[in-house]
């Protein structure tokens, strides 16, 4: 072999090994090696490497197109960047707690996007909250990520672009459209549903709970055989809420068969109702799920009518049966009987709001912000006992509510947290995450009076939220 006269030729020989392919140095690299100098393989390699170094690496023939910057949101203010990094990146700063969710929701509400240079450090946060932050935020990291949908301002969605949004935004858009044009919203869902995954289908079906009417019946019945069990259950739940359908009648019949009517009292006989749960339900979680699935599919008025009672009288008769009261609360929510729900919360089950968190508000068709506000106002009418509060419950409430609480409920939560017998930093972070903007300054002052180990994370969150709210996001 005597043709190794170029760096490429030398490298070819060195790759295979000079034992198999000897290097013959004549003419190698011009005058790189003087006559009389030993032409060993290492010398030839060194020369070839230097030649290759001076020739810069070959450029690719084609670069990727630079993605057009279609995210018109403003980048978060410069002074907030380090605060965000401190809140949700690095060791000991979780990206999945209530504070992180509050940050994501605040960015979404004010129309900010994260600084692109911070995305590598915020990757866990962005991935966790991609539903809220939108796909455009994930732009630099989504090469191998699932498409989460684009970010749209709440009021910029219309029937032409709603399918591009994140699933939460899609559901909110449909729920809102149902308020004004139920038939059109149904038609949009009907066209889009075959293209969506099961979790998105579920959200869209739940969104149809708003302004549900008999006109929806044919469409819902066509979905009764959906391949996803969760979607099938949601469809069944909606069908059961339609008066006059077989499913509604069957649901009422099922519940009536499990509720025993009796009489109590010596002088004034009063009606009593007792619920008999299925024997195979063990533990509180399956019981709550069963109650939500069954009572959440009927309205409390319809159920009461089956016993010949008013809703209030049915509640009175259920007194003492906690599970039945809980079921009536679910039915009141499904039937939007907010006064009945408030009555339950005031008189019989002050922590009833927490019972809704396991099945989720969407299971009762509560999807729009307005209905969520009505729900929390009814379910949490007064003070909150400290014993009912912990960071997990508050985080679940935050996820269900998808935003800050109304001031009255937020104040009740924070006051309860302050009275907790075992306060901790997570509890205050979760309570702070639920605060509306108008309370943040006061909350920050209150946190400042606490020991740093209790209020540091919550305080950092308030600083960020205040800055984000005070800044003006301008595309």
């Amino acid at each position, binding site marked *: 072999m005597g043709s190794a006269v170029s760096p490429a030729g030398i*490298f070819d020989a*060195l*790759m*295979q*090994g*000079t*034992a*198999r392919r000897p290097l013959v140095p004549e003419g190698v690299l011009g005058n790189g090696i003087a006559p009389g100098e030993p032409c*060993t*393989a*290492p*010398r030839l*390699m*060194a020369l*070839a*490497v*230097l030649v*290759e*170094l*001076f020739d*810069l*690496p070959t*450029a*690719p023939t*084609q*670069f*990727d197109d*630079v*993605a057009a*910057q279609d995210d018109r949101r403003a*980048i978060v203010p*410069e002074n907030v960047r380090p605060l965000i990094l401190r809140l949700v990146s690095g*060791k*000991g700063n979780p990206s999945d707690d209530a504070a992180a969710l509050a940050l994501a929701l605040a960015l979404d509400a004010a129309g900010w996007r994260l*600084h*692109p*240079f911070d*995305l*590598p*450090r915020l990757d866990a946060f962005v991935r966790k909250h991609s539903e809220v932050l939108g796909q455009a935020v994930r*732009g*630099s*990291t989504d*090469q191998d990520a699932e498409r989460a949908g684009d970010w749209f301002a709440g009021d910029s969605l219309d029937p032409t672009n709603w399918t591009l949004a994140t699933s939460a935004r899609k559901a909110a858009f449909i729920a809102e459209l149902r308020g004004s044009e139920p038939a059109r919203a149904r038609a949009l869902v009907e066209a889009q549903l075959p293209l969506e995954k099961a979790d998105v289908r579920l959200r869209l079906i739940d969104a149809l709970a708003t302004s549900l009417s008999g006109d929806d019946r044919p469409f819902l019945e066509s979905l009764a055989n959906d391949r996803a069990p969760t979607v099938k259950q949601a469809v069944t739940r909606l069908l059961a809420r339609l008066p006059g359908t077989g499913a509604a009648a069957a649901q009422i019949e099922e519940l009536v068969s499990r509720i025993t009517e009796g009489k109590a009292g010596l002088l004034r006989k009063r009606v009593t109702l007792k619920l008999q749960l299925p024997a195979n339900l063990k533990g509180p979680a399956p019981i709550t799920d069963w109650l939500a699935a069954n009572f959440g599919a009927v309205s409390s008025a319809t159920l009461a009518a089956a016993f010949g009672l008013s809703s209030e009288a049915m509640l009175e008769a259920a007194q003492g049966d906690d599970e039945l009261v809980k079921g009536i609360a679910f039915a009141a929510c499904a039937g939007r009987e907010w006064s009945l729900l408030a009555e339950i919360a005031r008189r019989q089950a002050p922590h009833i709001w927490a019972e809704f968190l396991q099945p989720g508000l969407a299971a009762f068709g509560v999807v729009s912000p307005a209905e969520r506000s009505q729900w929390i106002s009814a379910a949490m009418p007064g003070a909150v006992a400290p014993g009912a509060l912990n960071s997990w419950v508050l985080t679940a409430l935050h996820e269900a509510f998808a935003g800050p609480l109304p001031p009255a409920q937020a104040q009740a939560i924070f006051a309860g947290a302050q009275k907790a017998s075992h306060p901790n930093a997570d509890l205050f972070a979760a309570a702070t995450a639920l605060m509306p903007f108008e309370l943040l300054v006061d909350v920050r002052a209150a946190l400042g009076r606490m020991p*740093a*180990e209790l209020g540091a994370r919550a305080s950092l969150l308030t600083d960020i939220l205040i800055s984000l709210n005070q800044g003006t996001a301008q595309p």
Partner: protein
Amino acid sequence: MKRLSLSLEKIERLAPDQASLAAAKKLLKPSGWPTLEDDGDGLIWGECQGSGSTPYRIAVTELDAGYKCTCPSRKFPCKHSLALMWMRADGNVAFNRGTPPQWVNDWLGRRRGPVAGKPKAEDEGEVARPSIAAVADEEEQESNDPAALARAEAQRARNREKREELVASGIAAMDQWIADQLERGIAGFDQRAAQDCATLAKRLVDAKAGGLANRIAMLPAQLFGLDEQHRSLAAARALSAAYLIGQAYTRQDALPDLLRTDVRQAIGWSMTREALLEDPVALKVDGVWRVLAARDEVQPDRLRRIETWLERQSDEPVYAVLIDYIPVGGGASGNMYMPGELLDAELVFYPSPVPLRAQIVGHRGTRAADGRWQCANRPLPSAIDAWRRALSDKPWLGDYPLSASGVAVRSAGDALFAVSGDIALPIAASSAEVARPLCEAGELAMFGLWDGSGLTPLLAETQLGEWVAP
């Protein structure tokens, strides 16, 4: 010059672990500090009441975050030092103005490296304080016996000669090893590198050629950090550099002075700071240096190597790198300058045809830069030309500071490139993930390290703001 106060970010970087910061936080109440004083010139000290009867004494120089505490903690800095810095950085606690007590002056006297200022007592000529220099003088007087000096010098010469022989034998062994590797083929070198390199590295350590030993020992990890397709060429480059260093060393008498000194350092002959400062021909550059980047890596010898890259801004920028080695597990330490700081200092460069590594000769203070980094108006082709000249002067060059304006970062699949005109420098795979956001930053100015095959971006000035490698 306004002195830079300690920042919380700097304290975070100094802290050896999270627990230390947590422990320090509990010490932030001024009631636990009977003494909290400063000298108004960047030196603070205090006494912290611990569990014992005597409070711990802590001193900190704000200038370079130097610290000393009398507690027995094995963490450096300890929670007391961190707490003192923290209180200073917070600014919520008042420090009384005072004169440094003797124990602070003692510590300052023992310190090596830059200090915030000489002890006041010495400045004012009041009280002579103990110092290592004074002790050295005493020892020198004791050993003024000419015969003893001659014996010691003769012993040193014998040691040097013996080491030269050992190094020569080590280089011969390395040459043979490289030839053997080439005979077997470098296509499969990565698969046998871990074992073969470890064997050779041990042999080179025995031959007192620590610099070469480190190069060889680090090679397997470097290769496995690359895509499989790039490993063979990277191996050829690394073996080639080791071979060139060995060959240059064997012919060092024929080399120019700077290149000879450089190659001896590359082999492992160390040059002490004192020797460097005393070298009359060593290049010294005075000025205000901007800290462009700080990065660290753990070497196979369990030392953490901390590099601080500096730029003296002028018409033709001058670059320097401060390199500190600290034991792994000893906590963050070293100079700990942060990107964006300005360092007013005179530097002395280790002799080399491409002078980059430097030591601080004199230090007048540090402050935060007023504005962002301004890259000299230097297109990428000019920067590459400068690198080529440096490579000509020193064929085993390695990382070279490269700054250029008018560059765009573009992607081609998973790979990123720094592009300007016809030139497209591949961005090192290890930096690709963190540098990807630069793709949407448009045209930018960049500072990074170029080794001939990959560019490691460390700082960029863009339309979206300043980008600093994490």
